[in-house]
């Protein structure tokens, strides 16, 4: 047995170098094509107003979803893409909860303009009278068009953090106000876009509440924490700097197959395993054999095991997978992972299969840095 293991490692080491080169090449190709190939991403879809969902989406329903549809279609009419649709929906969530209200900050909070006059903001985007007539600002399509016409004048709006791009148009006190609406906006845009051909089905949610950060990417990395892996088969997530004792949610349904040490593993009905690392054992609230649903709390972020601070290490192993769609994902061994970390896939690519962005898109996760230096906790 031990000889076999040694042999396996030897082979892995011998072929490791060429694999690494191929892996880097594949990685580059994957990186370049992934935004376009991500399910649901890229070009936007016009919403069919006759086929609106009757069930709530992300807690929004009825007229709220219809207003989201008007916004999404206004983006399409201007030749804008799906990211712009998400931006518009995020903005209206943050301004009016997607309700076309005929009152604003003056009526609710007594907010005045610098010259002392009451503010006049109304509608889905809470636009003041300098934006247009009351009729224009209260017409969802026109209000959205006014918003987008300003947005596209913002330098680099498409590559900025979504909340900051929105802030350049809306000019509120808090540039980060819209951040927490990213996930819900993504879900609504996905739902209203209808079924997309190559999208995975089944529910997938984020493992932490909105507004989390990614502090270590999937793949090779330099690491100073003793015992932490130099090839990282996972994505590290946290709410910096309130990174401890933060609820962790199952990202998909499945059966708990392992809890112990610093790891919880949940096997999806399709046979692949999703693991959540570094929770303190006493914080884990599921047991082996439990059937969990997507979004069910399973514990809280901790610093258990090889870890340099509280965070969630999310990793997906597809060794037992029976879902053909997941077979399109690049395996860790093809990217140069040592044999200990074979059969893992990049969680970001996994989310992309569902038309969701784990990090760096219009979703809720950002990669923080201080003057270009990644935050220290891994």
């Amino acid at each position: 047995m031990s000889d076999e293991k040694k042999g396996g490692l030897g082979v892995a080491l011998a072929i490791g170098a060429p694999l690494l080169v191929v892996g880097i090449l594949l990685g580059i190709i994957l990186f370049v094509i992934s935004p376009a190939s991500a399910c649901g991403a890229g070009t936007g879809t016009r919403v069919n107003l006759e086929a609106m969902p009757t069930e709530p989406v992300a807690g929004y329903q009825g007229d709220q979803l219809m207003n989201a549809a008007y916004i999404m279609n206004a983006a399409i009419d201007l030749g804008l893409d799906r990211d712009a649709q998400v931006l518009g929906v995020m903005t209206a969530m943050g301004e009016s909860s997607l309700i076309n209200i005929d009152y604003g900050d003056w009526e609710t909070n007594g907010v005045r303009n610098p010259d002392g006059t009451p503010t006049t903001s109304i509608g889905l985007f809470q636009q003041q009278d300098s934006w247009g007539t009351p009729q224009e600002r209260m017409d969802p399509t026109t209000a959205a068009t006014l918003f987008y016409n300003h947005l596209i004048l913002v330098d680099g709006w498409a590559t900025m953090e979504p909340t900051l791009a929105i802030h350049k148009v809306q000019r509120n006190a808090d540039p980060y106000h819209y951040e927490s609406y990213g996930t819900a906006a993504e879900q609504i845009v996905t739902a209203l876009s209808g079924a997309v051909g190559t999208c995975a089905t089944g529910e997938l949610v984020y493992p932490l509440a909105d507004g989390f950060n990614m502090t270590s990417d999937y793949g090779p990395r330099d690491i100073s924490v003793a015992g932490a892996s130099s090839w990282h088969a996972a994505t590290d997530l946290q709410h910096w700097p309130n990174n401890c004792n933060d609820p962790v949610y199952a990202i998909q349904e499945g059966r708990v197959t392992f809890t112990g040490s610093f790891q919880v593993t949940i096997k999806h009905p399709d046979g692949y395993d999703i693991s959540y690392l570094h929770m303190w054992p006493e914080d884990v609230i599921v047991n082996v054999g439990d059937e969990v649903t997507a979004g069910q709390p399973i514990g809280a972020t901790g610093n258990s095991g090889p870890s340099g601070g509280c965070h969630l290490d999310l990793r997906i192993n597809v060794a037992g997978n029976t879902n053909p769609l997941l077979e399109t994902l690049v395996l860790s061994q093809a990217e140069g992972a040592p044999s200990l970390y074979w059969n893992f896939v990049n969680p970001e690519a996994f989310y992309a299969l569902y038309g969701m962005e784990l990090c760096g898109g219009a979703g809720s996760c950002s990669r923080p840095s201080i003057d270009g230096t990644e935050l220290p906790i891994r």
Partner: protein
Amino acid sequence: MTAFARPTLPEEQWWNELLPLLSQKGAVAYEGTLPSNIPVTAVTGAAVLLPASTDVATLVEVPTDAGLYVVTLVRGSTEESWLAERIRPAAQ
């Protein structure tokens, strides 16, 4: 926080006096803010340093006349002075 909480200042003066106190990311984020939209006009008590700080990033809780605010401070190294990255109402 005091430099931020001045909604009645002309836009240009507000920005010129706040800018030196912001980190690079903070400057990108807060550029274009309309000071008249800021609900805070005064700091009403002593600031409190929150736990979970490091040498280069920390959170400070500041009581204001518009409720509790949290300021995220960062610096490139221990030699440099702290700069504000986020100035936000505390989570409810």
